[in-house]
Structures are given as structure tokens and as C-alpha cells.
């Protein structure tokens, strides 16, 4: 008994680490994936808005402002929340330019 007491200690610590790891690792992996997806969507939205802007001869100042803001956020980087904000700005700008194009 006296010789094997460390088995309980090491086993307990390992179980604790395993529990923390099994919670944290998938969570961090999911957060990373979500951030990458959000940035991918944001970049796609900005590109689309840029194409729409170039296709319209008239100027839409509000859309310009929104797209500039979106590009600013994209340039600044950040987490998934920032990416979603940029995507939303770009989407609004895109729909403004499309409305102006008709």
C-alpha cells in the first residue's frame, strides 16, 4: 500500500488532465474552425461587394462607407465576431449597389 500510493495520485492527476483536455481541445478546435469559416465568408462577401461596386457607374456614398468599414475590419483581423460584422457590412453594401444598378 505504501509503495503504490503514487498510483492513485498520478492516476487522479491524469484523469483530471484528460477531463480538462477532452473539454478544451474540441472546444478550441471548433472555435478555430468557426473563425476560419467566418473569415472565408467575410472575404467572399467583400469580394462580391467589390465586384458590384465596380459594375455600378453611379456613386452610392453609404455603400462606399460600409464597404470601407468592412475592408477596415478585414484588414484589422480578429475573431469570428469581427468577421461576421465585416460580412454583414459587405452584404449591405452589395445589396445597395445591386439596387442602384437596376
Amino acid at each position, binding site marked *: 500500500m505504501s509503495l*503504490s500510493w503514487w*498510483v*492513485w495520485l498520478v492516476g487522479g492527476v*491524469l484523469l483530471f488532465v484528460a477531463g480538462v*483536455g477532452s473539454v478544451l*481541445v474540441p472546444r478550441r478546435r471548433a472555435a478555430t474552425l468557426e473563425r*476560419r*469559416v467566418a473569415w*472565408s465568408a467575410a472575404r467572399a462577401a467583400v469580394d462580391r461587394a467589390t465586384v458590384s461596386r465596380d459594375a455600378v457607374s453611379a456613386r452610392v456614398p453609404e455603400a462606399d462607407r460600409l464597404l470601407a468599414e468592412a475592408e477596415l475590419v478585414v484588414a484589422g483581423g480578429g475573431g469570428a465576431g469581427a468577421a461576421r460584422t465585416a460580412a454583414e457590412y459587405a452584404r449591405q453594401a452589395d445589396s445597395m449597389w445591386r439596387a442602384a*444598378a437596376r
Partner: protein
Amino acid sequence: MRGWLRWIALGAAAVVFVVFLVAQRQSVTVSYGQSPSSGNTVTEGSAGELGTATVPSTAEMTALVSAQPVVRLPGAVAHWDEQRVRAAIGNAPDIRIIVAPPGLDEAERTRVREVKAATVRVIGTQVTGGLYQSTADQLGEWRAQFATGDVTAALVALISAIRKVDAPAAPPVDPGWREPTAAELAPVLADLRKSGPYTGPGAVSAFPGRSPLVVTLARQPYGKPLPHYGRALEKVFPDTPILVMYGDWIEYTGPQAADFAELVAVTFYAQSGDRISRYAYPQRNILNAYLNRVTDVRYAGLFDRPLPYVPFDPLRVGLPALPWLFAVCVLVFLLLSVRPAARPTSRRRPTAAPARLAALAALAVEQSALTGRATDPALTRGITQLTAARSAIEEKLPDRHVQSLLNAAEAELDEVGRGLPYPGYRPGEYLRGGPS
């Protein structure tokens, strides 16, 4: 299956841990000091050790001792080898011996002690004199003393000590053994068959499972070999503990005699011999004390066999294995936990996304040759979406995201196809035919 195994391992580890913690309430100390014998072997006064014999007054005894060198008071039981004692006395003139009966109370013993004329006092078989008390220290001497009242060895040693000379060399005192005659054995056998084994106090714990046979004989005549009833009875009652009492001496014959008989006799008579020699205990009390000593020795584990009083306890046996069981459970849980965490995308299924991207890209290429000013922006937007989808596939982003990008591209290309003057360039129609 693997997930279940993982959680089963964790549960087993928890159960093992709880069992381990609960088991800690058990005492791990094993003591040999909890023998169930009934404690103090010989108790003063209450054990019937005071006999009916008495002694005269001190003055009368002094007169007797002055008259002759050896005085035997009525009821005296001690005997000795006259020749050897006389040799020990030698030419010392004033060695006078008074022999009193056993079982005297304190006042009577004081009266005997106050006979200053007596150099040596023998009370029962206890030998004292001057500042000394002489006791036997060998098994044969004890047997002689308690079975036949032979105090030769003690007397010679005491007288030599009083005279301040070395005791003369002599063969060890031992009454010796002889086979009992058929006439002696017959009544003993008849009695044993009638009374059966002894079941008095102490017999069960001393000899668990086998009640001993007890033969009680009076003090044997001095100077004759003792009849060894044990050996004779062993042939009639094999594998049975047999106790034969010769006066105050108990001789054991039976199973495991070599293991403990001498040990018990030596420890019992070394500790209690002084009281037994001085008093007149009933034989039943001496037997009881002896059985308790047997129990003590058995309990102490001196026999070559398992302790009779420790019941089998599976927890005590399994406790040392628990830590390793726990360790195995932890390892299984860890191994099964690490694999999915280390390779989360190992089961990435092949999807239709690359094929769909290729078909839409082919459509976009065909459309680009036909578009005009009105549909160019939609085509460009569609191509940017296709580019985004391709990089998403390369970055191994989830299929859902790739499909949403492809949906957006398809919507743009659909807008282009609707604006074209030629049929068959909308994605729905084009993809149905497959990329040409």
C-alpha cells in the same frame, strides 16, 4: 463501441477509487495481543489455592527444628534425594530444614518464616532460605517437582548458595517414564469412555474442533518413574489431544505435540510454577490456566499453520491489486480519449463539393464567352464566389460552408444564364447534362 468502452473504463476507475477510500476504514494493524484467553492465569485467593492443612505455632516449630535437623510438618508433600542433599550439606553443622504443607495462607506462612532456627524452608514444594529462593529451571526438574514433589535440585542449589560453595555436579533430575500396566490402563480407559472428552472452560479455544481427553491423577509417589498414559492412550484414541495430569504436572500427547508441548510447559511452569508450588490449587484450575496458555501460543501463530482467528476477507486480499486496477482503467480511458482528440478529421467523408465546383466553373467559362454588359457583373460575382469556394475546399473548411458559397455562385450564374439569349446555360439545365 469504443466510446462506451471509454466511459465504462472511467466508471470502473471511479468505483475502484471509492472502494479504496471506503476500505481505508479498516484497521491495517494486526495484533497478536488480542488472544481470547481469559487473562490472568492464577488469581490470588479466589482460585481455591488455600488448603486445609495448617501449621503449629512458631514456638512449637522452633522447638521441633531445634530438636532435629529435618522437620516434616503434617501434610508436607516435598521429598528429596537424602544422599545428594546430605552431600550438599557436607560438614556444615547448622543446616536445618522445615517442610510445611502447601496451601498455607499468609499468616501461616509468616509463622513458618519466623522460625529462625530453620535454615531452609520448604512450603509445598517452594524452597526458600536466607535471602534466597531456589526454583527449578529445567523441564525434568519441573516435572519431578510438580508430579512427584521432588525438590532435590532446588534444595541442593539453595544449600550450596547458603554455604557459598559450588553445587556438586550431578545428573539432571528427571523421574523418567515407564509404560503403564494393563491393570493401570483399564480403569483410565473405562473412565474416559464414560465421561468423554473434556469440554470445560478453555478447551474449545485451545483445541478448536477437537475436544481433548483429560486424565487426572493424584501426585505420584516420589522416586518412581511416571506411567506414560499419553502414549498408551494415543494408540486407542489417535489424532486426539490427550492431557494427563500427574498432581500439578500436565503432560500433553497428541497432534502437533512436537510443535508446542514443551514450549507451553516451559512458559507455563516458568511463570506460574512459583504459585503452584506454594499453594494447593485444585487441578481443574491449573488445567484451565494451562489451556489458556495453549490458546495463547496457538494464537501467537507459533504453529506452522494459518492463524485460526483471522477470517478470510476478500477485501484484505484484493486491496493491494486495487491501485493497479485503477491505473489500468485510467490508461484505457486515456488511450481511448486521446485518439479521437488527436485526429478529429480522420473520418472526413468525400463530398460532392469539388465536382460541383468543377461543373460550375466549366459553366462559368462557357458563359464568359457569351455574356454582354448586362450580365458581366453577375458572372464576375459568381466567379469570385467560385474562387472563395475553391480556397475553402483547399483549407478543408466544413462542407456546409463550401456548399453555401457554391449556392451563392450558382445563384449568380443562374442570373447570368437567364440573361443570355441562348437556352441551356442556366445551372439547373446545364448541370443536368453534366459538364460537356
